[in-house]
Each structure stands twice: as structure tokens, then as C-alpha cells.
């Protein structure tokens, strides 16, 4: 699971790991400095595009938060005046449902073909709690057996044997803290789940490679998932979370 981003992250480590002499390092340092400042440091079309994307993302976040606030009023109407219907699912039931899907097996090559091999399993779930804004937090425990980490020849110079054996040991097991965001997609008639691994504790200390490992887990293991809804959970239903339940208000 861990060295998923290895080929991407290794070049970043290059200036630190290569035994460069000062005269040889100078042009590279110059190139790096120029690359960092770009063309004089002024704003470019890339900055403009980034600003457009940022506004678009924030507009969509605001829309989702506004919808959640409106849903809250409908739920208060339901609770205080029994207006409309509701489906309520408690954290215990949700935890049991996830447990029913376990153990979840996956092969090392699903994480990084040619670099990781072994038999992996998500074996348990605990610490499930619901958070404001249609989110849930949980911890997944995993284990790996017959784990092998193979570093491609072009990267061998940059990864020590100690790091490889730490990665191998780390992949034999650990815990992942995951936050799941849920929202309804009327267009697809589906409930969309977006999991994100926020922290991890592994069987070995990964040191500076931990960030790479977390990125790899998020890219390869934590996929956005669309679940087709069946009646009465139509896509026009609304979702909200309370400390006690995930609530669906069917329209």
C-alpha cells in the first residue's frame, strides 16, 4: 500500500540523495531557482486558471453547505411536527453494515503493479462517528501477508535497504483513519461517497515516507463511489447527519 507514489516522489528526493559535487550541483540549483521564480514571478495564465478553479470549487462547497442548512429546517419540522417522512440509520447499524462487507481482500498489485505484491485485507472497522455536514469518521484495520516491495532499478540508488525493509514491515498491518463525505447526485440517481484517509498508523515507522504512503492510499484505495439508490431513496431525497443518525428525507 505504501510506496504507491514512489516514482513520483523519488525525483523530489533527488537533490538530497545524489552525491553531487558543488560545481555539478550549481547548474541544477540555478535551474531550480529559475523554475521556482518562473518568468519573473508575475501572474500567469496558470494562476488565472487556478483562481477560476478555486472559485468554482468554493461555489460548489457553498451550495452543498446551503443545501445542508435547508435540509436541517425540514428535519426539525419532521421531528417537532411529524411533517413528512424520514429514514434514520444509527452509527451502530452503519458500523455493522460495513463489518458485513469485511474482510475486504485486495492484492498488492492493485496498489502498485510491479512494485508491491502480497495479499492484503481490510479486517475490521471501529471508532465510527457521524460529523456535521454529511460526514462520517471511522478507523479501518488492515493486514498484509507475503508482502514484497520491489524497487525498480532506476530508483534503487535513491532508496536505502533500510527504507525498503521498513516499507515491507509497515505494509504488514496498521490502522487507517478515514473521513467519508456523502452527498446525493440527482443526475446519477445515486448516493456518492468520497472517502479520504486522514492519518495512518503502520507496523513500522515510515518517517518521511509517510506522506507519500498516505497520498498513495488516497489515490489507489480510497475511491469516490457512486451507489445507485433504490426506492424510496430517490435521488431527490436529502441527506443530513446528526450525532445519532444518518438521516434521509425522501421527497
Amino acid at each position, binding site marked *: 500500500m505504501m510506496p504507491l507514489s514512489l516514482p513520483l516522489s523519488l525525483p523530489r528526493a533527488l537533490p538530497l540523495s545524489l552525491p553531487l559535487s558543488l560545481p555539478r550541483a550549481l547548474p541544477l540549483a540555478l535551474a531550480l531557482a529559475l*523554475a521556482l521564480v*518562473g518568468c519573473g514571478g*508575475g501572474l500567469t495564465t496558470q494562476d488565472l486558471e487556478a483562481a477560476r478553479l478555486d*472559485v468554482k470549487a*468554493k461555489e460548489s462547497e457553498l451550495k452543498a453547505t446551503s443545501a445542508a442548512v435547508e435540509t436541517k429546517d425540514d428535519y426539525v419540522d419532521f421531528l417537532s411536527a411529524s411533517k413528512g417522512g424520514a429514514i434514520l440509520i444509527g452509527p451502530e447499524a452503519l458500523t455493522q*453494515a460495513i463489518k458485513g*462487507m469485511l474482510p475486504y481482500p485486495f492484492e498488492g498489485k492493485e496498489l502498485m503493479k510491479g512494485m508491491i505484491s502480497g495479499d492484503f485485507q481490510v479486517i475490521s472497522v471501529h471508532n465510527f462517528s457521524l460529523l456535521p455536514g454529511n460526514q462520517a469518521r471511522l478507523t479501518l484495520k488492515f493486514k498484509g501477508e507475503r508482502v514484497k516491495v520491489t524497487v525498480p532499478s532506476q530508483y534503487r540508488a535513491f532508496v536505502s535497504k533500510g527504507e525498503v525493509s521498513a516499507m515491507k514491515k509497515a505494509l504488514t498491518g496498521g490502522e487507517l483513519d478515514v473521513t467519508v463525505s456523502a452527498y446525493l447526485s440527482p443526475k446519477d440517481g445515486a448516493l456518492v461517497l468520497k472517502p479520504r484517509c486522514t492519518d495512518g498508523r503502520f507496523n513500522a515507522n515510515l518517517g518521511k515516507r509517510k506522506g507519500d504512503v498516505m497520498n498513495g492510499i488516497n489515490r489507489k484505495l*480510497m475511491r469516490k463511489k457512486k451507489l445507485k439508490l433504490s426506492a424510496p431513496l430517490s435521488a431527490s431525497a436529502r441527506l*443530513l447527519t446528526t450525532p445519532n443518525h444518518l438521516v434521509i428525507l425522501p421527497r
Partner: protein
Amino acid sequence: MPHPTLTLAALALAALVGCGSRGEPLTAEQEAEHRALVAKSQSLSQERAKLAQELNASFKKSGDLEKRQGLAVKGAAACNVNAQGAAFDLAAFKKRPGRRAALRRSGDLGRPSCDAYTLKVTE
């Protein structure tokens, strides 16, 4: 002394990675658009933070209200809705292990028009 070929290669790399990847410099019109976007981004963040505060407060209030109404169920419940068989898989894994979670009615909840349910996983 730095090797001349290496220096040239490094400068070419800088030109490609630095200037090239950051795009063209902005025109006056584009700069104005950028300023407006930055201002809009800040205002959207403020608006969202305000709504998020409201949402956080209502999260707790709704929970308290559920408890007062006797609706803080451990399993699942449905009121004024027939939720029998509604699929609700929350395990966001890449592929499903051939199982599905669906709601099954398990009895009365002791509250008018509300039924108790379990979220049952089947093969």
C-alpha cells in the same frame, strides 16, 4: 567550474519547467479578472464559514431534539416511509465483495407511523 553543457541544459530545463509550465503573463484585462476572482474566493470562504457554524450548531440541536422525541435509535428506523429492501451500502471500497446492505423491517418502534429496521448484509 560548472560544466557548460550542464549549465545550458539546466537553463533549458528552467525555461521549460518554470516559464513554460506557469503559462503566459497576464494581460491587464486578465489581471483584473484575477483580482476579482481572488476577492470572490475570499467572500465565498467567509460565507461558507458562517453557514458551517450554523450547521455545526444545528448538528447538536437536532441530536438533542431526537433524544427528546425518543428517536435516538441504535439501529435504524423509518417514519411515514416504507424502507423495506432499500439498499444502503456504505463501504466505499473500490469493488464490492459480492454482498449488499439493505434495510429490513424488524418491528415497531413504539412511536406512531415509525418502524424499527436493521441494516442487513446479504450475499
